[in-house]
């Protein structure tokens, strides 16, 4: 046995592996938000009507709003179970930087919920008659946008994790912050449908991604310290 200062990468890998292991043993946590996503998207044609033209017009919005909601649904498990069984305290008390721990947990959350969403999105796009030219834009915006959802959402969860009925409050806190991502992502998909370049919107989403990647873990760390207080 030896006392060693773990490298940041080792800490990151340790927490990531732990969270993924837990998720793999609790598969319904992965599947349920995904099912929710699919069901919400299939409800829209039933509510609006099966005309291909209308559907393809609103498809980007539907897919993105459903993605927002299913992320919101899955966010709860990001810190809740760790808070309930005390392992969150232990993590905050470890000599490792909170930034790394938090980032690893968020990345794990994205791998568990964001990635499956991206994989299944083209299938749903087919159901909604999304314009063929938009598929690339859909995947790219989801790829850049869903991490932003996880990062911003983590702030909200960290703030509400100590509150008994934090679920409803969470949506009030987090959804307004999601608006820019929603606007730019859907507009990128719309622009792509017209055959125009959408790199501008993508660049803005990328900027949002890097901005939240650097700032959100700090906010999450501070919020967790308040919540475990």
């Amino acid at each position, binding site marked *: 046995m030896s006392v060693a200062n773990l490298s940041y990468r080792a800490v990151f890998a340790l927490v990531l592996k732990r969270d993924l292991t*837990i998720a793999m043993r609790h598969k319904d946590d992965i599947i349920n938000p995904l099912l929710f996503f699919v069901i919400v998207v299939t409800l829209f044609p039933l509510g609006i009507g099966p005309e291909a033209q209308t559907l393809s017009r609103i498809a980007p919005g539907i897919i993105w709003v459903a993605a927002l909601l299913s992320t919101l649904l899955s966010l709860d498990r990001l810190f809740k179970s760790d808070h309930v*069984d005390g392992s969150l305290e232990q993590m905050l008390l*470890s000599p490792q930087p909170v930034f790394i721990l938090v980032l690893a947990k968020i990345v794990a959350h994205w791998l568990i919920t964001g990635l499956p969403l991206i994989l299944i999105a083209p299938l749903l796009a087919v159901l909604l008659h999304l314009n063929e030219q938009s598929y690339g834009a859909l995947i790219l915006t989801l790829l850049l946008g869903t991490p932003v959802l996880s990062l911003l959402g983590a702030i909200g969860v960290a703030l509400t994790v100590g509150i008994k009925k934090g679920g409803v409050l969470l949506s009030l806190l987090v959804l307004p912050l999601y608006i820019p991502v929603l606007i730019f992502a859907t507009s990128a998909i719309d622009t792509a449908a017209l055959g125009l370049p959408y790199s501008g919107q993508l660049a803005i989403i990328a900027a949002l991604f890097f901005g939240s990647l650097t700032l959100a873990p700090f906010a999450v760390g501070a919020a967790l310290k308040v919540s475990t207080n």
Partner: protein
Amino acid sequence: MILRYRIIRSKSKNDLHQNKANRVRLDFVRYFQYVKECIFPLSANLAASETDSLAAENQPALLSATNLTCIREERLLFDQLTLEINAGDIVQIEGPNGSGKTSLLRILAGLSQPYNGDVFYKNQLITQSREEFHQNLLYLGHLAGVKDEMTAQENLNFNLTLHGLSIHSSELEETLTLANLTGFEDSLASHLSAGQHRRIALARLYKSTADIWILDEPFTAIDKQGVNSLEQLFKAHIKQGGCVILTTHQDLLTFSPSQVKKITLDYIGE
């Protein structure tokens, strides 16, 4: 045991009366003199421990706190609490339910911020030397910090690695044997009993290199034999120059009363 407890209690009550600022202080020298006068007029044993604690004063206190004030839900739990914990101390915090024992432990561990006052690790603010302090701190709260979805071995491995201790799997099994979890290494924590849960968390103590152990009700759900071996562990830890701060409703059985320092929290609003 009961006798001693009462006298210390009334002593600290006296303190509350005399001192408007309401310091519950751990003034060991005065404390021992008091005990000496009261019960053991001639005790070599006590005299020795008295010089011990005097010698320890030359070094910086392992953990000290000044003027701690804690308010929870707009209730004052303690006010202007000053304490000093040296290497080789075992400190038991007592008080009725809701008197702020857990809050005090959490403040000392740096988990909660006090309303007022500071906590120092070797004369350095714990907020400033966070990493060094956490390297030398082992805190176990009410909640065990054990994941249901992981096996006993995985839990222990994660907890140790996170706190900077790398360990081989053979050693992991040894440690779990010490914690009396033989045969349960590979069972998911969700299949284990409350006591075994607790043991997984406590198994960390056997490998800990931290000086300061802060334990909130470590004996809950632990059987008699387990309590005994934990107390042996505390003894070894203290001998090596560590300190133990704990809350427990039972008294420590294998320690002589003079070894255990007590802090009584029993604050009444002014």
